[in-house]
């Protein structure tokens, strides 16, 4: 899962929707003004109530506004999760969704609301969102990816497989360039991006096939996709491929193989699903979960990588080496101002 900060999500969502696409519901100027005010209020807001209300007020006035999805994410997070009022949050966002006619905004808001809709047991019709948008234009790779993720999460395997096939067709340099017309990426970077696209699509396709009962085909597809897999600084697979493959091995009782595939994702704390899976593989191998935490710590120490030192300036122009700033424990964060 690609985690995003809430406001980052709001900004990103805003950027993906063409301006003026929701003129009927929101005169451009006042909607823009309302969003600007909402953003300023969000930075000042201290409580979950205040943050949820910012989203509610916006959606009340501009249900089909350009920033509706980002604002829906505020309501869902702060009212639905922080204040533990999922039914109320669902009613607010679903009420706004019902008023939206633009398929672009419907898709964005619907995708935001989908996980909560399952929590409150009123699942949104994912096919309808997709078909609505496809009536206007084909989905982009990233949209197909979002649908694949949602479909897999809610075990809609046929939908996941169909979207994976479409996404696979979009794993070409031409499609990548068309999706990023302003990108300055060179041939090598585009080649990497395309390979990442195809690994993503194949990972979902294989995982869907596995869950549809085509196990042999799925296992061979995992192996094929793995040839192009890339790994991050800590050796964690950059796509969900190793996790799905690990889960498939787990489902077949291949505990050792499952552990091997899941360990890098599970060990360093960024993937709760992989960690839960690794726990199951451990229990399968040892007959119980006893000793799991000790094993986890030992494996973490064994696989942990020493950080590379580097030198960069602070805002007074003084250069510092990371090693000169380190303490007993260092939290090294990479960020940018939004």
């Amino acid at each position, binding site marked *: 899962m*690609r*985690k*995003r*900060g809430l406001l*980052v999500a709001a900004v990103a969502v805003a950027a993906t929707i063409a301006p003026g696409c929701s003129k009927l519901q929101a005169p451009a100027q006042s909607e823009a003004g309302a969003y600007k005010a909402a953003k300023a209020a969000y930075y000042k807001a201290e409580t979950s109530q205040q943050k949820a209300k910012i989203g509610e007020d916006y959606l009340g006035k501009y249900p089909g506004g350009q920033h509706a999805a980002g604002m829906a994410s505020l309501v869902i*997070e702060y009212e639905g*999760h*922080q204040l533990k009022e999922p039914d109320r949050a669902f009613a607010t966002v679903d009420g706004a969704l019902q008023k939206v006619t633009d398929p672009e905004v419907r898709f964005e808001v619907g995708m935001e609301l989908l996980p909560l809709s399952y929590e409150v047991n009123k699942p949104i019709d994912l096919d309808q969102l997709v078909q609505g948008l496809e009536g206007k234009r084909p989905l982009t790779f990233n949209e197909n990816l979002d649908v694949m993720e949602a479909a897999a999460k809610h075990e809609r395997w046929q939908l996941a497989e169909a979207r994976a096939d479409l996404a696979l067709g979009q794993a070409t340099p031409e499609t990548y360039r068309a999706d990023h017309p302003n990108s300055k990426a060179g041939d090598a970077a585009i080649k990497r991006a395309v390979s990442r696209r195809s690994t993503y699509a194949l990972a979902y396709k294989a995982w869907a096939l596995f869950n549809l009962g085509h196990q042999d085909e799925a296992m061979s597809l995992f192996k094929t996709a793995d040839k192009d897999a890339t790994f*991050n*600084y*800590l050796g*964690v697979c950059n796509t969900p491929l190793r996790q799905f493959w690990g889960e498939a091995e787990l489902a077949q009782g291949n505990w050792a193989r499952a552990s091997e595939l899941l360990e890098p994702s599970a060990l*360093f*704390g*960024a993937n709760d699903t992989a960690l839960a899976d690794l726990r199951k593989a451990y229990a399968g191998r040892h007959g119980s979960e006893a000793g799991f935490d000790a094993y986890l710590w030992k494996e*973490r*120490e064994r696989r*942990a*990588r*020493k*950080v*590379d030192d*580097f*030198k*960069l*300036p*602070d*805002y007074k122009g003084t250069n*510092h080496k*990371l*090693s000169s*700033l*380190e*303490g*007993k*424990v*260092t*939290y*090294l*964060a*990479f*960020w*940018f*101002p939004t």
Partner: protein
Amino acid sequence: MPRLQPLYEKYRDRGFRVVAVEATHNTDAAKKFIAEKGLTYSFLEDNDNANVVHGLFGVHSFPTAYVIDRDGKIMYYHLGFEPGDEKTISEEIETLL
């Protein structure tokens, strides 16, 4: 980033450091943000020559963070910063201090 400030204040006397590397050379916006939020931990700025964020660490999603132990080993990693993550990070710091 502001949510790291209380963690920094809570643990700094026990040897906890926060080093934040800005990835986009957006100097003015970063300085304004740091001043407005009253952030007092260490801030560094990446540049094309050093290419630390994208090149050395291959980071493409933000915020990404590593928790490094006293031997310089990366023991935990975080993608995103969601409400409630403070608790997880506190627990990790406690295991390493």
